[in-house]
């Protein structure tokens, strides 16, 4: 199977009645070996790999409230994919499901080919997650916390020094977590994210407590990680900051991926995004929206990902393009 064809090819075995999960797992064996090769490849970012994160038709309810209504997405190694949307759009819930912290009420999700519910520990071995506002045992020092997580993930102690240096916390390594400022806690969270060197990184609003300098540093770190063929999925509503940094930008709205945006032309806020989406024909905003539509929409993450799980794709609407070639 050629690498370039993995993304858009019909799912092998779907016609033979194989379950989507089994198809996915068979793919993952290929994906893992490719990824291992990719990590050794200095030009990893130029190579296309199969998706490391797949979610199809995710549904999540809290009581009577349906937070996710059939959300589907995919993310590939070597790319920073950002998930944007207003408060309550379902970004954090999606991240929690992918991290194995919440079970979906419907749909499927897989990390590195491992089903996030049925093979949760295998999926979690392939990922590292930074929650929104990470908090820690207040009585433990930064070093004790890093040692603990290093033991859990089987990481060598030498990497602890490396990640502490990466996030500029070497001087406070013996400080208790309870005494750290919000920004320092966030940086400790980033250190823990990087610690296991996992192939998939999930970040939920990582920039909120960081000052501009550290937000820039975080972008640089993530770009380095992406260049090492990591799959990075990040939820944020600081949209404009990720202009020209992310490779893909998915707009989450009302529990679904509404469309894919041009990652090089992200607006400053959601009002602007809404204006673009609802602009009158002929206006500048409408022209933006059309460009989005031409280049990225009907991205139909949903249609595409359903196809990967073995369902037939829906026919594209008028003026729609086929999903972006992988």
């Amino acid at each position: 199977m050629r690498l370039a064809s993995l993304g858009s090819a019909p799912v092998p075995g779907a016609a033979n009645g194989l379950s989507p999960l089994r198809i996915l797992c068979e793919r993952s064996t290929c994906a893992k070996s490719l990824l291992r090769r990719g990590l050794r490849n200095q030009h990893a970012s130029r190579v296309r790999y199969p998706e490391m994160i797949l979610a199809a038709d995710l549904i999540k309810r809290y009581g009577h409230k349906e937070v996710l209504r059939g959300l589907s997405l995919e993310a590939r190694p070597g790319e920073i994919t950002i998930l944007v949307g207003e408060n309550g759009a379902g970004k954090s819930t999606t991240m929690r499901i992918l991290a194995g912290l919440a079970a979906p009420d419907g749909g499927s999700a897989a990390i590195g080919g491992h089903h996030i519910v049925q093979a949760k520990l295998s999926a979690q071995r392939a990922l590292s997650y930074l929650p929104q506002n990470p908090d820690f045992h207040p009585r433990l020092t930064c070093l004790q916390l890093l040692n603990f997580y290093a033991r859990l993930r089987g990481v060598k102690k030498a990497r602890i020094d490396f990640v502490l240096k990466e996030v500029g916390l070497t001087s406070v390594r013996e400080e208790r977590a309870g005494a750290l400022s919000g920004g320092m806690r966030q940086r400790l969270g980033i250190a823990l994210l990087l610690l296991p060197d996992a192939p998939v990184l999930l970040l939920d609003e990582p920039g909120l407590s960081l000052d501009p300098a550290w937000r820039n540093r975080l972008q640089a770190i993530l770009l380095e990680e992406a260049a090492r063929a990591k799959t990075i999925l990040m939820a944020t509503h600081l949209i404009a900051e990720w202009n020209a940094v992310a490779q893909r930008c998915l707009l989450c709205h009302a529990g679904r991926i509404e469309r894919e945006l041009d990652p090089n032309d992200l607006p400053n806020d959601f009002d602007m995004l809404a204006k673009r989406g609802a602009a009158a024909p002929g206006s500048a905003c409408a022209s933006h929206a059309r460009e989005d539509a031409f280049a990225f929409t009907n991205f139909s993450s949903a249609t595409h990902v359903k196809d990967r799980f073995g369902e037939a794709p829906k026919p594209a609407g008028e003026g729609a393009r086929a999903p972006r070639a992988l």
Partner: protein
Amino acid sequence: MSASLGKTSLDPVSAVLTRELHAAILNRYFQVFCVLALAGGIGAALLADTPDAAPMLILQLALYFVSLFALLTGTSSARAESQEWPLLFAQPIPRSAFLAGKFLALVAIFAGVLALLFLPALFVRQADPAFLLLYGHTLTLAAGCVALGLCAGFLARDRVQGLVLGVSAWLLAILGADLVALLAARLSFLQRWPDLWAVFLMLNPLDAFRIDALFWLERIPAEAARETSLTNWWLDHTGLWFVTISLLWMAALLAVAGRHLRHWED
């Protein structure tokens, strides 16, 4: 291969155990407990008129003081890093390993700290089997109360609710059950089933501990109580029964806590 598998499955437990030991050293409940345990141990040694009186004083401390502190320590430990759970439970370890590590660490810590309560008495008496057994049973009681505290802490939504839940359960076990039995004793038709009373007491680990100590350590003549075969059996095996019922309660409480943790969602 099996050795490496065993090592892998124990790694998370030992990592949690080490973390809990680090955290416990700085836990105020624990620091206060250490000081009071030492003071209690010295007090029991000094106040005992005869060498045999020291274990009886320690018994009272074990029943009312060790059990309560073990419960508070368990609850405090369960809630200590609840804000960290999203990060912790995104790691590839079973949540039961987290619970097992916490429980084992707290029991190990109590095993050491209880020495502060027991060692001073050795200046006035010898470490005979009865005294060592009292230490073992006190540790078992502490382990049961740690399990109760962990269960209350994990079931609760916050630390205060956990403490209220845990202390309520402890009060029920130490006073409430006996109060219910006392009130029920006024009902004449219940007097026809003496085994009912025995079972009621047997199922409560604190009562089982009390009975064990009174009839075994104090060597109270128990002929008056030997009315049925069940009470006969119990009074012949008070220590065995106490350990058994404590282990059963521990398993049940940890299973409930583990189930709750397994289904916990951020």
